[in-house]
């Protein structure tokens, strides 16, 4: 029952929260309002997918926020000024993520330590690139992120597309199944003749790819970057994966859930601000929402195990 209903709880959390937000702030219930509520959730959703790729193979990535910040800085400077060079750098960043995955596996290093270390490398590079905030978003990213498609706001459309594509990739495709298997039982995957190092590199490479997309989307929204722009994303992305029904071990992840988790977290922050809650309490309240959902999940899964 677990796998099938795992998606239920995130959906319910989002719907309940959305209902309460609409009730508090009816103005949000419009094309314009939904876009405002959710457009900053697009880069968070992409970062959450990036984190999910790593969690899928039983690791955790503490460098994601710094990495997305670095990508944002590259996007706002090199990709804007010299697109070809900028694109090469971004590809290089994805490759270095894949390499990081391979190294973590080959040297049997704990991912939590390596990624924490790498977060300082990414952060340093970002500061080197943009010591003071600045840069500009490439025109095409800006116009992509401010598109106004008919009927459905871009933020919602983007979330649906990201969820659908990653669902195909992670749940339906062959490589996705093997990667989840790696999280479930690495040894049997190795016995079946797969090159585990290559698989880990693939998972990390995918994570890097979505991290790059996240940074680019973020710059499209903010129009410029600074070296600390996405530091919150590390924790937000982990919370999003877990909120979306993923688990830290066993390759049990849900891309659709992760996207919904990211939307829920973004919405929770807005909801708390609509409540006029003092900022001192907001972080705590965000944590409380997280604990509430996780508790609900635990209760559900206990029941599931019993029947």
């Amino acid at each position: 029952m677990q796998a099938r209903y795992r998606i239920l709880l995130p959906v319910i959390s989002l719907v309940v929260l959305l209902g309460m937000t609409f009730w508090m702030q009816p103005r949000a219930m419009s094309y314009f309002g939904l876009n405002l509520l959710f457009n900053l959730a697009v880069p968070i959703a992409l970062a959450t997918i990036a984190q999910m790729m790593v969690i899928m193979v039983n690791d955790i990535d503490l460098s994601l926020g710094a990495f997305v910040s670095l990508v944002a800085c590259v996007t706002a400077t090199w990709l804007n000024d010299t697109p070809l060079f900028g694109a090469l750098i971004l590809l290089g960043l994805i490759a270095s993520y894949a390499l990081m995955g391979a190294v973590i596996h080959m040297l049997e290093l704990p991912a939590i330590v390596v990624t924490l270390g790498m977060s300082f490398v990414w952060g340093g590079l970002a500061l080197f690139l943009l010591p003071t905030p600045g840069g500009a978003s490439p025109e095409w990213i800006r116009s992509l992120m401010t598109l106004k498609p008919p009927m459905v706001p871009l933020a919602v459309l983007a979330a649906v597309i990201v969820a659908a594509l990653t669902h195909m990739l992670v749940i339906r495709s062959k490589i996705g199944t093997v990667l989840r298997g790696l999280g479930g039982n690495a040894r049997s995957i190795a016995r079946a003749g797969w090159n585990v190092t290559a698989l880990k590199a693939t998972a990390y490479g995918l994570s890097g790819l979505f991290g790059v997309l996240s940074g680019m989307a973020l710059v499209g929204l903010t129009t410029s970057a600074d070296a600390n722009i996405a530091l919150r994303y590390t924790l937000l992305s982990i919370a999003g994966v877990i909120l979306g029904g993923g688990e830290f071990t066993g390759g049990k992840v849900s891309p659709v859930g992760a996207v919904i988790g990211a939307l829920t977290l973004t919405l929770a922050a807005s909801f708390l601000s609509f409540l006029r809650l003092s900022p001192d309490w907001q972080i705590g309240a965000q944590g409380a929402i997280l604990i509430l959902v996780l508790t609900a999940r635990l209760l559900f899964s206990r029941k599931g195990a019993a029947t």
Partner: protein
Amino acid sequence: MKSILMGAAALALMAGAVHAESPTASKRIALSNNYAGNSWRQAMLKTYEETAQAAVADGVVAAADAFTTSENQTTEQAAQIQNMILQGYDAILLNAASPTALNGAVKEACDAGVKVISFDSIVTEPCAWRIAVDFVEMGRQEVEYVASRLPEGGNLLEIRGLAGVSTDDAISKGIHEAIDTKYPQFKIVGSVHGDWAQDVAQKAVAGILPSLPDVVGVVTQGGDGYGAAEAFAAAGRPTPLIVMGNRQDELKWWAEQRDANGYETMSLSIAPGVASLAFWVGQQILAGEDVPKDLTVPFLTITQADLDEALKTTPEGSVSNVSYTLEDAQAVIAGAK
């Protein structure tokens, strides 16, 4: 959906009707603040609250709420601005976490018809108003004062702020420009970073003092004058002319020295009350006044004559403050035209 839009249109019409009677009575203003973790920002929020409460009570505006982000992050503040647009505020006063990274959100606000007034830490988006401090001028004024007191010149020690922050660069630039162009009789023999904190400044000055020749004056950035004085005293050197930065501990030390040996100096910094100036500027914009996009805040300067008064009104551990009025805002606007 359609009915909601109609409702909004009807509301807008009603607001328009009220508008005709008193210019901003139906308008709502929000403060978006990125950080509240030091005495300056605390004083800023307090001044804003006082100004806002009085204005709401007098019926000048319908609401003037303050919001502070919890983590001083640009993405968080961008979301906060978007929420304010949704909540239907007419103007947003903005102390920004980044000069550029909020431009997307600021543009969205402008496109939605919300006036955005950035102050203190300003944003570069052209559609927003900017109430900036001329920190270069602040550095220049320091040197001018020192030159007026010590016309024969001499060696100066410079205490800088937090490295890499634009404010620090600007003040230092003003100091160096003034010396290079107008007062060649002065020479900066040492420069340390005091991070706008007394303890850091004291350590830094104590570290550099043994290597320095006689120092006649210390040019500072605020929050570092008292630390410098302590360092000079600990090294057993005569106290030079130290320019102060309006902090209560600096004023207290200055008053003590004045009573003991007639010590004389001046003190200047930007007043946290700039938030109240931003409020009135926002009110003027909402009232339909023609306000230039770039405004400059005056500094708060304390001289020997008003030291006692300033010390009396500055709470312990805080910084000298002034609450700006509608007339002050009008004067600033007129000055920029």
